[in-house]
């Protein structure tokens, strides 16, 4: 789970100030598989959880996860409001978000997936307009930005869990969502796998990053250092394979700076 990092040493020697002593508090928006979601026992697990556990371990503290709407994460509100130290939510690095957040080095390449009902003749987002279909996206995500910039009027859901429920409910015809999340649905949700398929992928060229409160350089440095370590010692790749289901094509270098 999120707090099972073995090292329970009190405090940390790196001089990093945390909102709650002894814990590295992470804001995320549940559920967002495979980056973070509750497993059957109710523990929060996922790729991001593993990564931040590494950071916590390096700090000598435990990770604690707070569930907030993604909107409050991507605009920095959750961090600025002192709810957490790190935002880890499969979040894309964008110029706009950089104004409010201090991003880490990128750790994941973003790809969006267009999902449609099996057997429909939808082949891409273009069919949404021509066939007058309902497009469903998650609130405040780059998917929404992308869809609106392309002139769509999508239906917006507070979190990915409601989005997938809307698919099950037949309230949407086409869904735009990050590929790893979609793949996780298709892998783990029988009714989704039975009815839906990925019909198109959109490579945005963007990347995911973790974020700290703007100006919190101590923590950002530690974060970047821990990530680089993970890239180098193979623990990043190990987690990637565990959660994405296949080995990564390439490992991030940790050189291009996020913020």
């Amino acid at each position: 789970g999120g707090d099972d990092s073995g090292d329970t040493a009190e405090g940390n020697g790196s001089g990093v100030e945390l909102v709650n002593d002894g814990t590295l508090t992470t804001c995320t928006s549940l559920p967002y598989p495979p980056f973070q979601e509750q497993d059957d026992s109710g523990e929060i697990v996922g790729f991001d959880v593993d990564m931040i556990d590494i950071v916590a371990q390096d700090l000598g503290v435990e990770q604690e996860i707070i569930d907030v709407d993604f909107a409050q994460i991507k605009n920095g509100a959750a961090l600025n409001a002192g709810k957490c130290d790190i935002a880890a939510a499969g979040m894309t690095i964008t110029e706009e978000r950089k104004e409010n957040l201090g991003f880490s080095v990128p750790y994941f390449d973003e790809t969006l997936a267009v999902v449609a009902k099996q057997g429909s003749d939808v082949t891409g987002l273009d069919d949404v307009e021509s066939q007058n279909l309902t497009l469903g996206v998650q609130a405040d995500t780059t998917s929404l930005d992308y869809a609106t910039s392309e002139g769509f009027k999508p239906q917006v859901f507070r979190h990915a869990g409601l989005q997938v429920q809307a698919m099950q409910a037949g309230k949407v015809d086409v869904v735009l969502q990050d590929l790893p999340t979609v793949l996780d649905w298709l892998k783990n949700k029988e009714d989704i796998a039975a009815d839906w398929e990925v019909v198109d992928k959109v490579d945005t060229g963007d990347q995911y990053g973790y974020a700290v409160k703007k100006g919190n350089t101590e923590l950002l440095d530690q974060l970047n250092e821990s990530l680089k370590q993970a890239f180098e010692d193979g623990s990043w790749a190990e987690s990637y394979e565990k959660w994405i289901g296949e080995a990564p094509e390439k490992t991030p270098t940790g050189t291009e700076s996020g913020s």
Partner: protein
Amino acid sequence: MTTDTTVTEAGPAPRARLSPRKRKKISLAIQYAVFLVVIVTLAFVADWAAIQHAFFNLDEARKAFPDILAVGLKNTIIYTLSGYILGFFLGLVVALMRLSDVLPYRAIALAYIEIFRGLPAIVVFMILGFGVPIAFQDYEMPYDPYGTVALALGLVSAAYLAETFRAGIEAVPKGQTEAARSLGMSQGRAMFTVIVPQAIRIVIPPLTNELILLFKDSSLVFVIGFTLSGYELFKFGESLSTRTGNSTPLIVAGLLYLCLTVPLGYLVRKLEAKQKRGRV
């Protein structure tokens, strides 16, 4: 009366202590002093610049207009009114069932009222927005999402409205029915000639009050999921706030809610006061 009246016959007057008037003056003075101290302290301690920047940022407020009116306020009003109309008729039916002679009707009405008054509105909205469509894949709600919103708000308000209607009918004094019956009117005739017209007057204030509550409840329909053009006041303000990281749009949305609810609340109190005065 002047204060310098000579007390010609003053006996051993109980003049002890402070006179009530003096006591009152001193107490008032102390209270004003406390008030001033608090105000001055606040003025120095609070970070007014930060407050103004975060909550009353004119630039941010300007950005919210006119869309917050054309989209947010408009949708809030549409959702609320459509829910209210649905709830009104559903509530009437439930109230009649509640007063029916047929036990199963009474039981169903009672269960309905208890359930929908006891559940948080957001639970109802979630079940209606996601649970029901998942369970009934084939059935499509007409005019979705407006249909779902109207239904959700209607179901919630119907329980309150039903109780209001029933209370209104029961608030008409029994003597009114008795007088009507003793003039040879049948039960039904007495109901519609004498009871219902008086019940309607009685229920107008609580009915208005429930409209206020529904305006507030409509802030929760966002959980059902909307297109941007379907955002109501709260979601509009919240989404703008989260986009800019500044709370001003949320404050603007809040002020617009107050523009709806405060005058209605004032109206309710006016009507109630008028009703109290006009009692037979």
